[in-house]
């Protein structure tokens, strides 16, 4: 129940009355309608499929945060049963609440990152993404020319409004008027396929969900399927998501991925330790993204990408704890945030170690 505190009572009423009451009202005569419309073939189908009752129940499932404890347990039991049958192994769907007094943060050393993409593939192994057709990856590693980053004062101060022959209208001319100051993603390569990394004269910058304090995706979601939990992580209720992809448009970091097809996850590669908001297998037509490995971090373990990094460029921890790795980095290194000008206040920091 601790997660519910982020949605106040007013919102709760709004959400409840929005969809559930509509459905309730519509189906007051559901029994008659079912008899009228169920064709023989459908009747056979639902009889042969043991999951049929669960599917009906899931169809009327509410927003997970607004469910009672009993409803949550039922929903989780349904999912565990389905996943265990589908992937032929015992699957657990956890509902561990986010820890109190914690604000999750991440720091990544772009001076150390060598662009080996081990984080990308560790993430795929942990989080049950679709493996091929479509191949979904939550982390994108950008290979960028070394000139693309400049945080020196003379670089940043370039391009203040200058007086032109037309007068001083505050129009930026010269300097950085046609070039981004700070970090520029110009000429970034996402599909580089080098024999060996790191390549000379390039640096690498992995980008994943930045877990913004002011997440534009949450503002854009029309059904509040995506929300920010009290540990600061932006999560998605996959069952509540309607697949409108507004959040994908709103995100300035290209961090969200859409399941255009039925995810193709081989049973033996499936990770059976899952979390409701984390890595449980998704269905077609829902959005997914980095959750800081909710199934791991809520139980105290580091995210999979942090553990896979061979150069130790990734640091994860509690931003409220001054002794955590992340706070040590923030205190002693030169830190910046990606697309700071977007006003999203990411909790994902890049630093030059």
């Amino acid at each position, binding site marked *: 129940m601790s997660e519910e505190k982020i949605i106040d009572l007013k919102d709760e009423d709004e959400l409840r009355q929005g969809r559930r009451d509509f459905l309730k009202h519509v189906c007051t005569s559901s029994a008659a309608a079912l008899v009228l419309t169920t064709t023989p073939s459908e009747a056979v189908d639902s009889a042969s499929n043991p999951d049929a009752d669960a599917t009906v129940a899931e169809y009327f499932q509410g927003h997970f945060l607004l469910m009672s404890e009993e409803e949550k347990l039922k929903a989780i039991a349904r999912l565990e049963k389905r996943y265990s049958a589908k992937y032929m192994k015992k699957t657990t769907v956890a509902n561990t609440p986010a820890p109190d007094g914690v604000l999750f943060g991440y720091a990544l050393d772009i001076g150390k990152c060598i662009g080996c993409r081990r984080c990308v593939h560790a993430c795929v192994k942990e989080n049950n993404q679709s493996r091929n057709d479509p191949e979904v990856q939550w982390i994108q590693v950008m290979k960028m020319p070394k000139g693309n980053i400049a945080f020196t004062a003379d670089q940043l101060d370039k391009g203040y409004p200058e007086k032109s022959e037309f007068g001083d209208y505050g129009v930026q001319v010269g300097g950085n008027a046609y070039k981004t100051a700070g970090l520029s993603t110009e000429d970034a390569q996402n599909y580089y396929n080098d024999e060996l990394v790191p390549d000379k004269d390039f640096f690498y910058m992995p980008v994943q969900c930045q877990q913004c304090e002011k997440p534009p995706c949450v503002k854009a979601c029309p059904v509040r399927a995506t929300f920010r939990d009290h540990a600061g992580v932006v999560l998605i209720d996959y069952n509540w998501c309607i697949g409108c992809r507004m959040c994908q448009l709103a995100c300035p970091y290209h961090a969200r991925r859409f399941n255009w097809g039925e995810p193709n996850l081989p049973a033996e590669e499936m990770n059976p330790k899952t979390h409701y908001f984390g890595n449980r297998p998704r269905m077609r037509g829902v959005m997914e993204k980095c959750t800081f490995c909710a199934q791991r971090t809520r139980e105290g*373990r580091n995210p999979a990408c942090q553990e896979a990094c*061979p150069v*130790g460029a990734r640091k994860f921890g509690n931003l409220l704890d001054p002794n955590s790795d992340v706070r040590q980095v923030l205190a002693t290194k030169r830190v910046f945030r990606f697309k700071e000008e977007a006003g999203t206040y990411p909790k994902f920091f890049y630093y030059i170690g």
Partner: protein
Amino acid sequence: MDFQYKSPTFVSIVLCAILVAGMSAFNSAHSAEVKPAETQNAQPVTDCFESRIGYSSVTRVENANPKYGYPNVKCSQSTGAVLWWADPFEGTIPMGDMPEISDDTRGDFANAVVKPRQPQLMYFNMGPNGCESCHEGKTVRYPKDTKPRLIGMHQDIVENSLKLMHGRGALWCLNCHSANHRNNLIDRQGNLLSFNQPQKLCGGCHGDIYIDWRAGIHGKRIGSWATGSKKRWWVCTECHNPHTVQVARFNRLKPEPPPPLPRGMKNADYERAGEAKH
């Protein structure tokens, strides 16, 4: 408006019909069988390495975790690098005593564990007594001093012992390897150190890095994220080879495969158009 008031039952029935049709479609989508993927044909890689090839090797054990049926590690198909640990503390031992330096770098060593380095060292495991199986004073006599001289052995570690380039010639083998106790390292004060604790030796000279490492900034730690809880630390020699720091300072690695190209795209050459500028 009139229509709705006249026949609410009819509207309800039509909507429910749509709903039922949708549910059966939803149902069939969920009960569809898992399609065999291309990756299913490939056998999982069993001989894996952590961080770099040859520095620390791990063998994949199937069903190492009976609760979930996990293997102990999951490795990359293309490179063999360990990408995923079922248990981050598998095969670890306590780090051992660490000196307290100051408040800034007192380090979070209470529950620190490391993977022992000794089982990974080739020559250390050749005899029953480690390096002292040969270097016991008789088979190979103890050297009189630590002056550099040409060595006819261990050329796979250092090709020419007169050109050992750690510290650009300032240091030689016996400045770090104890002459009379070959199973140990020796620091500049003459203390014997285990091969499992190279950080105490390296930190003697590389103080700035050592301080960052103690604070959790340099190097890698896996396990729990919370301060004071159990973490597996990576020690210096799990990533750095002290014998080849000048000649092979940062050997490059083979990367993992790139993401799939968007549908309809043949190659990513457009990305490389900007390379000429730089």
